[in-house]
């Protein structure tokens, strides 16, 4: 029972972590809460669904296609809605992000309708495995495996490549990085592309997990993933992974011990409690006050 719930929690949590990574990377570089990120996740799910059901693609190809599509979308959104606002107040950029989010979700509702859609059952024929007394679906293993793989790839890009170094430098100090000859605009676009690709993968995985894709799935998932990013310490990549997993596991266990009607509050209650003890999240750096 415990093992079963733990696996459920980790599967859910890794999808939160995938979305949270996008929030945390964008925040780390331009301190913008990208509220449109949840909608990118939703669009990713829809594109994956279309590729699977209309073009009859294999689920992995569909996921790759959806990631590529959302990469472009993320870059375009940044270019249109955030880049002109980079020098102005942060709240203006926030409202712009909210505008994008409203735009995308209503566009999705117009195009795909208000009803939730499911993946065709042959998209990923899940089987049940019995390990001990736990029933684990191969779908859950797929979700955990793909998420882990993507996070490792991200860690590799950020830590070992030249562009990753540029990303870290930009998030450390935007102006100095620009002075050192780093093309900051490119770094920001690249960050949006990476974050959006992860969100798209998360969207396809969540669509498979709950077998439901709808125009408003981005809102709650986005808010919870944002909570996960803040819980881990916003701006910190390992923090987002840790925060996502923690919230997913906590949510599943909360539901399992009978608080299912409080499901959506669990993540936020944990967040508030943790912030009261550690005001910058679990792995967040202490904010220095400069006089």
């Amino acid at each position: 029972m415990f093992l079963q719930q733990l696996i459920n929690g980790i599967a859910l949590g890794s999808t939160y972590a995938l979305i949270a990574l996008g929030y945390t990377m964008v925040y780390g570089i331009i301190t913008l809460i990208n509220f449109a990120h949840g909608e990118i996740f939703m669009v990713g799910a829809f594109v994956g669904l279309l590729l699977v059901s209309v073009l009859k693609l294999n689920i992995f190809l569909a996921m790759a296609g959806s990631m590529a599509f959302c990469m472009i979308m993320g870059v375009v959104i940044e270019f249109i809605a955030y880049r002109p606002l980079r020098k102005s107040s942060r709240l203006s950029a926030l409202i712009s992000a909210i505008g994008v989010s409203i735009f995308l979700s209503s566009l999705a509702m117009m195009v795909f309708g208000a009803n939730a859609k499911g993946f065709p059952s042959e998209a990923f024929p899940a089987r049940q495995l019995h390990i001990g007394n736990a029933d684990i679906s191969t779908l859950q293993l797929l979700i955990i495996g793909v998420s882990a793989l993507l996070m490792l790839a991200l860690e590799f890009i950020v830590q070992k490549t030249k562009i990753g170094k540029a990303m870290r430098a930009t998030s450390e100090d935007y102006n100095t990085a620009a002075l050192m000859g780093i093309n900051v605009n490119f770094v920001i676009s690249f960050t949006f592309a990476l974050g959006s690709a992860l969100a798209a993968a998360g969207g396809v995985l969540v669509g498979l997990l709950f077998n439901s894709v709808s125009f408003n799935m981005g809102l709650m998932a986005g808010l919870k993933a944002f909570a996960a990013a803040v819980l881990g310490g916003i701006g910190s990549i390992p923090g987002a992974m840790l925060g996502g997993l923690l919230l997913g596991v906590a949510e599943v266990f909360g539901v399992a011990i009978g608080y299912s009607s409080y499901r959506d509050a669990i993540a936020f209650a944990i967040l508030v409690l943790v912030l009261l003890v550690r005001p910058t999240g679990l792995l967040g750096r202490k904010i220095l006050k400069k006089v």
Partner: protein
Amino acid sequence: MLNNLVNSIDPYLLQILVNIGIGIILALGLNIITGLTGQLSLGHAAFMSVGAFTGALLTIKLGLPFYLTILLSGSITAVVAALIGWPILRLSGDYLAICTLGFAEIVKVVFLNLDITNKALGLTVPLPPSFLPMPIIVLIVVVLAIIASAFIQNSRFGRALMAIRDDEIAAESMGINIARYKVQSFAVSAFLAGIGGCLYGHFLGYINPSDFGFLKSIDMLSMIVLGGLGSVPGAVFGASILSAAPEFLRFMSQYRMLVYGALLVFLMVFRPNGLLGGVNFTDLVLRKLGVKPHLATHKQEGQ
């Protein structure tokens, strides 16, 4: 006589006007904590919700006179906000924002599970005993809220709040008790949100905890950012536009929210400081009267 006057207005137009009025009250409330004090709140709908349910329960269970209900729901909301604000206002910037968002979600889910708020079914609110028609009451509250906001902005209290917004460390070294002022402005802000919620519930006749979700908080925030942060006429203007926009865009039917979203992006890109950013109400009046206003430069929220 007032009843006749109100009845002579087209009911549809009246409804839009009352919505604008309630929007103005809410925007002025949020403007105090986010515009003046510079603390981003993403959960103001929760205070609206607390005010709406307090007001509804006071009317249903106790049948208090309406003006008393309004005052009480505002005050109770302010107390709730002070209790919540005391621990979380220590957090800085975006950590505070996500905390308010978290609290709003928690309040919503708790109200969805309480018996007294009738769980997910929501409450039907009867028309309260009052000798003034509802739209007139809203109008009076709007006028009072505008006057109060203008006074706050030009008082010692308001200047302290703006000092905190512009530079916390400098404000602290000038002897401003940051924690106290933040909690106070949070409470004042919630007071208006509670009153707005109470009016909203009684005007609509039905409230449901799900009505006061994240999107409602975002609505309020859009109003003040669009109008211009920290500016009373800005808040009034932003609230009027955004409350009326869904009605004016109604002819586009299904494209309405699409256009609304695109409009927010475009307005922000072309007017990043809001439509009336940095405009001060009393300065405007003084200038009209030919008096040279003291030139306080308003730095917008930022670094």
